[in-house]
């Protein structure tokens, strides 16, 4: 029996306890992002000073970063499939791809934030600035954690310490990654496409 299988604990329902714990964590994250999105929507259109969303949001640039994040989710499941079938060569390629995709997304966010600040939108400028930076900044912090997690898995794969017996470890990292993707799906629609 492998070390990973020997140390795995299953619940009375036969579910992996790590996976169950992570799903419970994701549930709590739904409440965190729900509260941040609510705050953004409640204060939407109530800023007494500019810049306003329609003056400042750059939809073409954000569409590209959205596509990038979407593709990184595909690479994540391909990495998991590669680990499950023991194809570590492709697992390394896809894991690095996810980390690079996430870094590109963060680069777009850095570009967006710095251009907004240059145009006068800061957290102190108005209600839009405050709620926008907190919401998208919290999401960006989650992407950063995801990128670090992917790089850790990639390094372990390079060292030969990641194999099919660690598929659940990769699957749980994937849950984290896909969650930031689904949160961005909501943010892209509510903040960028349905702005006032």
């Amino acid at each position, binding site marked *: 029996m492998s070390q990973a299988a020997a140390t*795995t604990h*299953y619940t009375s*329902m036969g579910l992996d306890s790590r996976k169950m714990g992570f799903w419970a964590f994701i549930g709590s994250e739904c409440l965190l992002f729900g509260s941040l999105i609510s705050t953004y929507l409640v204060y939407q259109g109530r800023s007494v000073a500019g810049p306003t969303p329609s003056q400042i949001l750059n939809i073409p640039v954000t569409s590209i970063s959205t596509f990038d994040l979407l593709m990184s989710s595909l690479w994540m499941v391909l990495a998991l499939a590669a680990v499950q079938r023991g194809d570590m060569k492709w697992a390394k390629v896809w894991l690095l791809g996810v980390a690079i995709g996430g870094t590109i997304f963060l680069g777009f966010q850095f570009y967006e934030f710095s251009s907004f600040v240059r145009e006068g939108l800061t957290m102190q400028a108005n209600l839009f600035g405050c709620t926008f930076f907190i919401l998208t900044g919290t999401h960006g912090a989650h992407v950063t954690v995801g990128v670090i997690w992917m790089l850790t898995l990639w390094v372990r794969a390079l060292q030969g310490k990641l194999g099919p017996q660690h598929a659940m470890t990769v699957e749980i990292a994937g849950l984290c990654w896909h969650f930031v993707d689904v949160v961005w799906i909501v943010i892209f629609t509510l903040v960028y496409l349905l702005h006032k």
Partner: protein
Amino acid sequence: MEHAHAADQPHPVEHPHPTAGTYIRVAVILTVLTVIEIGVFYVPVFHPVLAPVLLSLSAVKFAIVVMFYMHLKMDSRFFTFLFGGPLLLAGAVMLGLMFLFGVLTLGH
């Protein structure tokens, strides 16, 4: 000892995951839906129905990622409960706050 401990544990429930081909088909669908979203945003004729169309497309994309990439379609329903319960609660809190602050109103 470790072997005996592992043998005492409940039997793991394993569910087969989709193939790489399914993952790629899902990515194509998600890309097409995203292109439609952006297209709808830029075409003035859709502006009267912009909110319902974009929210529906977003909900479909959300569901597809959760079902296929996060494997909720194949995994134990208990994971769906762990995720869906707080998600519904978050949605209810959002709607409650939006009604409370007058962002959404009933009737007039």
